[in-house]
């Protein structure tokens, strides 16, 4: 599974960076940066990040 953020929806809330800091961060300009790949053990944190995104912009590819 890979992480995918829909940039059209994301408004750089940054909640995901609090829930899963290993995978999501906001850069110096406040813009979201994230990694597509993650270790299996981190799935829980990725799912937490998906939950806390107020605009529900984070998806797992290979999920549907």
């Amino acid at each position, binding site marked *: 599974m890979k992480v995918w953020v829909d940039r059209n929806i994301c408004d750089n*809330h940054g909640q995901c960076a*609090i829930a899963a800091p290993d995978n999501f961060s*906001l850069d110096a300009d406040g813009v979201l940066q994230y990694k597509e790949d993650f270790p299996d053990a981190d799935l*829980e944190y990725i799912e937490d990040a998906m*939950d806390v995104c*107020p605009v*529900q912009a984070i998806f797992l590819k290979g999920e549907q």
Partner: protein
Amino acid sequence: MAGLRSAEQMRGAGWKDEIVLVGDEVHPPYNRPPLSKETLASQHSPDEALNSVLLRQRASAAPLTFRLGERAAACSLTDKTITLDSGESLHYDGLVIATGIRPRRLDVPGPTPGRYVVRTLDDSLALRQRLTPGVKVVVIGCGFVGCEVAATAISLGCDVQLIEGSNGPMHRALGGTVSAAMRDWFVSRGLQIRTRKVVTEFLTDQTDPHHQRVAGVRLNDGAELEAEVIVEAVGSLPNTEWLQGNGLDLTDGVLVDKHLRVLGAQNAVAVGDIARYPDQWTDGLPRRVEHWQGAIDTAKTAARSLVADLTGNQPPAPYSSVPSFWSDVFGTRVQGLGVPHHATDVRVIEGSLEALDEGVTVAYTRDNTIVGLVTIALPPARLIQLRSHLGQPLSELLAPTQLTTN
């Protein structure tokens, strides 16, 4: 929403048995924040609107059984049964109370048609149909929902008056100083505001004797305001009726302990807007918090507490999440962290309250310790950078090195 998140978190905590979610709305769990903002301003069909707000559910939590469109009418916490509206009763081993709140209605004379609230998707869609350019709208109440609806209605070309009641815009969340600045800013955006007024009557439309419709409001100073649409945003009532008769403390929501377990019940927790929990950020004073992030955070702790109780294990760490909230008004983000209402002092540490549009950061302190932070018209990253200062002395934040922005 807190119900769904609790179910998912119970799976995460290892619960393998059946999980049933009972909800009286016919829609699957959805996101409420857009209802006073994007949804209200959108041209979407009802189906598109629903799709745009549906909460994504964790695939890993399957299977979950949904009983949508069914209401819990009563329950017995000793027999561990819930009675549905239909008369059917459901037995449970563990109970998550997540029935949230409903808008309070004003108890003053006058007709009902033409009066709206915004809590559900259906509420939002019904109001949206009436918000056409030139329509006269009166919004009563200036908490988040009232302010957001008023701002959205202005953006749609309506003629909007906001009746403040006893306190100014977002006063409870932001305190008096910032609230006063918000008021000036709202006025500069075209909102007409009636400060410190209460509605004493809904006026009746005399031109249409067959249909008793509202035609406006009368205020306590005798003033009459004409309006075709009235929005009541005057606070909330926790949906606790179905829990009555079990000896619980239902004074304001459901009283829980620091692990979010219902006091006076076995194997029951409460989450989201309905949970009144001892908040360590307000010296352990029990309170309810009606913010989106709280629904997710309480679900996580409560699910773990419940699974621990059901499996005979020690409960996890007490609930300690920092309350946080955001609001969007006139396209501007207001974001808060901590407990601004608990502060005794406020200090603007960036920007100016006279120019909210240009970006402002406010620190709220109690005994010189930062207990709350609010940013207005700044990128969310700003608040995340400052997050570590919560609970720390104000002096550290004011140290010159901290003030450099990049």
